């Protein structure tokens, strides 16, 4: 165990490093302490590496910059390492001169104490015993998304099992006459290319296709999923795969739910219905079901979509499906290209044509498609066809228009299987609520044997969960990636991109699983949760709270950890009331000891101590960034990075208060529907758990402001300093903790 102290970047000029070294040796109990003027230089790094190679150093403490800086220089595989953040955490955020020098030195010394304490409890992760090596990829769904995923995986060199529930590949796209253009000049509908795509898939020797098949069971974990593929006949084939791309696609919103817009009446079709008419017209004049040639057509946009009326929301789809405006434009062109005399009206409230579809829109205007800003209220059947009643939103008056055919642009409904949260609720309420039961009726796609439910968790509107900003293909089941309209509504081009992205994630997953490494966002982490089952009380908190469904239960209701499914967030560790879950390099102890290592001034010193538990994904970088821009904040804080606020065990907070801290700030990512938490549920769970600390505070006779949680995004470097300073002022106001020195 050796401490290395850097004197570069001004640390040597401003801090009393002699004192710091003494702390490392005497209090931190380091066997040796070495100083270097420029530790991250080749020479400095060589010094450390030399000690590891020649003197058998296994634990390295580096007192220099933030653990997020110079990670390439300070990269010593095989040894345990902790880092005291003297640069971003002290030097750059505390003013110089006068009183400051003293409190700053105290801060630096504390960080060294904390780092030494952490190091002592750390082990080098031994690697993952759960590693397994199937590198095949299962693709569920044979539409454009699934076909693209399959071909991308195969061409990257991975074997693929493709499961399609119908008798043919191609999905919805195979039913289209043409597709919205995706190439210059974005002026005319283009051939779909689906037949060619299918031919490539069928002709690829790496791809095994199961038609008329569904997934009867998915068991295991990344690298060793055991899949039961059920044929229509009832025969079951077993396949072993390493990762899964779920491309189960969408269904069209049922227009029978839109009787006021003519759903179900003759001469009213949805967009899929129009494709059928266009395919049978084969480029000629489009005819209605009754055989009459269509001379006038009205497209009603957003039919049964974007329905947010009323306080409790509308009855139809609340969202925009994204593709339907461009699709209607394309379909209007089917008519215009066959016969320019056909009257084509697209009735929209907002025409949404993302990307290059704006050019496509212009092209339709050139071709004489009329765009009317209006909201359709009623479609009536007439002798000739239909009468569409609408509000003209520009002229602000009620109007109506006759048409031979009306096309309703209904949206996409994801095929995302069972809503496992509703299942849970329904079971909780002893099968009580009828709505809940109705909503769980859909048939499961994956039939996971996971304790937490059969399918991927859903975020909103039945769409499969994803962190749409940072990692869109991630779901809350490691090694299973949602792609295409099952994830969010989208068009063919987006689905193609989506499939490619998800496939690359699946490739990463199988490669990581093969060597026992964590997947995103702790990619490369070799540690995994270790549980001392002797102490486990079978409380089930870990199995319920794990955001990734990594923990199953055995017959005796003990948790069974599936390391390959685990993301190493530590939520289970934070949840466990008897603290039997830990990682080799991150545990209740590594943090607990840091908390206790801080030197606590007495009640009358007027030097409060504030503990900050900061999420390493956003809050900690934001604090570093505050340092980088030399934003000053109170020198009374002591920051400990945590993997996720979800990993915060309440014992840390209780211990901190008992040992005399005046306040505890918890900084994590945004929670809720538009969460930013990298582990999805971590910050939410932490918030929930902390809401229960009020009792503890009361017992200890402390004010409830002594423990507070905050949402901090990675960009909040200024805000974070302000939060700290405000909180320090508040602590000053309520006074020092009475628990010091007990």
């Amino acid at each position, binding site marked *: 165990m050796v401490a290395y102290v850097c004197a570069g970047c001004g640390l040597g000029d401003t801090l009393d490093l002699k004192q710091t070294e003494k702390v490392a040796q005497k209090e931190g109990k380091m066997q040796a302490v070495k100083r270097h003027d420029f530790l991250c230089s080749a020479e400095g790094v060589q010094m450390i590496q030399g000690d590891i190679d020649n003197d058998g150093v296994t634990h390295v403490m580096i007192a220099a910059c933030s653990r997020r800086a110079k990670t390439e220089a300070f990269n010593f595989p095989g040894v345990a390492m902790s880092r005291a953040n003297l640069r971003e955490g002290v030097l750059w955020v505390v003013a110089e001169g006068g009183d400051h020098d003293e409190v700053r030195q105290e801060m630096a010394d504390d960080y060294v104490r904390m780092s030494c304490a952490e190091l002592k409890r750390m082990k080098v992760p031994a690697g993952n015993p759960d590693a397994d090596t199937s590198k095949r990829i299962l693709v569920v769904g044979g539409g454009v998304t699934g076909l693209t995923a399959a071909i991308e995986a195969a061409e990257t060199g991975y074997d693929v099992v493709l499961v399609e529930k119908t008798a043919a590949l191609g999905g919805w796209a195979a039913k289209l006459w043409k597709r919205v253009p995706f190439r210059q000049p974005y002026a005319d509908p283009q051939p779909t290319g689906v037949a060619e795509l299918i031919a490539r898939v069928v002709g690829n020797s790496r791809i095994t296709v199961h038609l008329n098949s569904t997934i009867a069971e998915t068991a295991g974990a990344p690298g060793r999923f055991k899949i039961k593929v059920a044929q229509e006949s009832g025969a079951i084939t077993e396949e072993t795969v390493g990762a899964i791309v779920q491309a189960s696609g969408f269904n069209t919103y049922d227009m029978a739910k839109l009787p006021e817009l003519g759903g179900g009446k003759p001469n009213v079709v949805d967009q899929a219905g129009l494709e059928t008419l266009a395919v049978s017209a084969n480029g000629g004049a489009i005819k209605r079901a009754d055989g009459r040639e269509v001379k006038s057509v009205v497209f009603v946009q957003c039919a049964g979509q974007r329905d947010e009326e009323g306080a409790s929301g509308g009855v139809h789809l609340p969202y925009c499906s994204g593709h339907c405006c461009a699709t209607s434009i394309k379909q209007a062109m089917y008519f215009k290209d066959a016969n320019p005399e056909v*009257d084509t009206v697209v009735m929209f409230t907002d*025409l949404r044509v993302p990307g290059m579809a704006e050019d496509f829109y*212009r092209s339709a205007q050139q071709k004489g498609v009329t765009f*009317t*800003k209006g909201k359709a209220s009623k479609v009536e059947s007439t002798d000739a066809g239909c009468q569409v009643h609408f509000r003209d939103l*520009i002229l602000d008056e009620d*109007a*109506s228009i006759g048409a031979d055919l009306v096309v309703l642009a209904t949206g996409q409904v994801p095929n995302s299987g069972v809503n496992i949260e509703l299942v849970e609720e329904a079971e909780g309420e002893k099968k009580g609520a009828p709505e809940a039961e109705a909503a769980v009726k859909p048939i499961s796609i994956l039939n996971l044997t996971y304790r937490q439910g059969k399918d991927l968790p859903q975020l909103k509107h039945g769409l499969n969960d994803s962190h749409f900003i940072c990692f869109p293909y991630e779901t809350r089941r490691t090694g299973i990636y949602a792609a295409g309209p099952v994830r969010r509504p989208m068009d063919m081009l987006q689905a193609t991109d989506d499939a490619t992205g998800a496939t690359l994630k699946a490739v990463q997953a199988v490669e990581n699983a093969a060597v026992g490494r964590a997947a995103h966002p702790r990619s490369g982490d070799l540690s995994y949760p270790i549980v001392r089952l002797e102490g486990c009380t079978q409380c089930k908190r870990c199995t319920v709270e794990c955001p990734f469904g990594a923990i199953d239960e055995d017959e005796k209701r003990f948790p069974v950890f599936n390391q390959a499914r685990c993301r190493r967030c530590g939520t289970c560790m934070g949840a466990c009331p008897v603290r039997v879950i830990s990682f080799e390099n991150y545990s209740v102890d590594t943090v607990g000891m840091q908390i206790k290592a801080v030197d606590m001034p007495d009640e009358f010193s007027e030097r409060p101590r504030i503990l900050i538990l900061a999420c390493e994904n956003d809050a900690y970088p934001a604090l570093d960034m505050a340092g980088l821009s030399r934003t000053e904040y109170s020198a009374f804080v002591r920051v400990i990075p945590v993997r996720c606020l979800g990993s915060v065990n309440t014992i840390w907070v209780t211990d901190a208060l008992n040992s005399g801290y005046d306040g505890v700030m918890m900084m994590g990512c945004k929670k809720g529907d538009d969460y930013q938490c990298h582990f999805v549920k971590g910050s939410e769970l932490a918030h929930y758990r902390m809401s229960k600390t009020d009792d503890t505070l009361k017992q200890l006779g402390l004010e409830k402001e002594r423990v507070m949680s905050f949402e901090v995004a990675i960009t909040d470097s200024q805000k974070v300093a302000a939060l700290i300073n405000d909180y320090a002022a508040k602590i000053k106001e309520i006074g020092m903790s009475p628990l010091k020195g007990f």
Partner: protein
Amino acid sequence: MSESNKAANTVAAAAVARYRNNFLKEVEERVEDGDMVKMCMQCGVCAGSCPLGPHWEHSPQKIFMMIRAGKRDEVLSSDSMWMCTSCYNCIVRCPRQLPITHIMHGLAHYANRLGMVPKGQPTRDIAKLFWDNLLKTGRVNELKFSLAMYFKDGFVQGIKNALAMQGIGLSLMKAKRLSPMEIIGGHKCKDQSGIQKMIAKAREIEDRRRGALA
């Protein structure tokens, strides 16, 4: 209005149905830059940019929507396009690059040819006075034009107008910008009948091009 124009008018009107493309097609064929009307994306930037906007009944955006809605009578008898001051704000800002100002003038012109302009529309009246004045001699007679303008609403109002403008008139005279002698004859161009023939020919070509004489 000529007989042929009247005929064209009735034929077109009969064919126009609400929210069909017929009137749009008529505008495309017969109105200057009318073929650009279909490219409007109803963003409303022109309506928001027009300095006269709050004072007219129909903004350019609405006019274009009305054309597409087949509101032939409302459009052609609208006062709105006569209010355009040719400031070109809308043209500069339109994201779809519609030559809005030109279309406004084109519509006004077309409505005038069809005799559908509201009675007493001042812009139209002044334009007419100006045009007749110009056609006579090939040059504008400022004095006669001013007097015609003053007296267009009757004799008494004319006297009032003239008195009100007296000061300006005298200043113009002093600066030699206005000659009282213009009242008798006034200056003219050399080949008056040549000019008139040229204009007549131009009108004929225009009519043919706009299909009004089909």
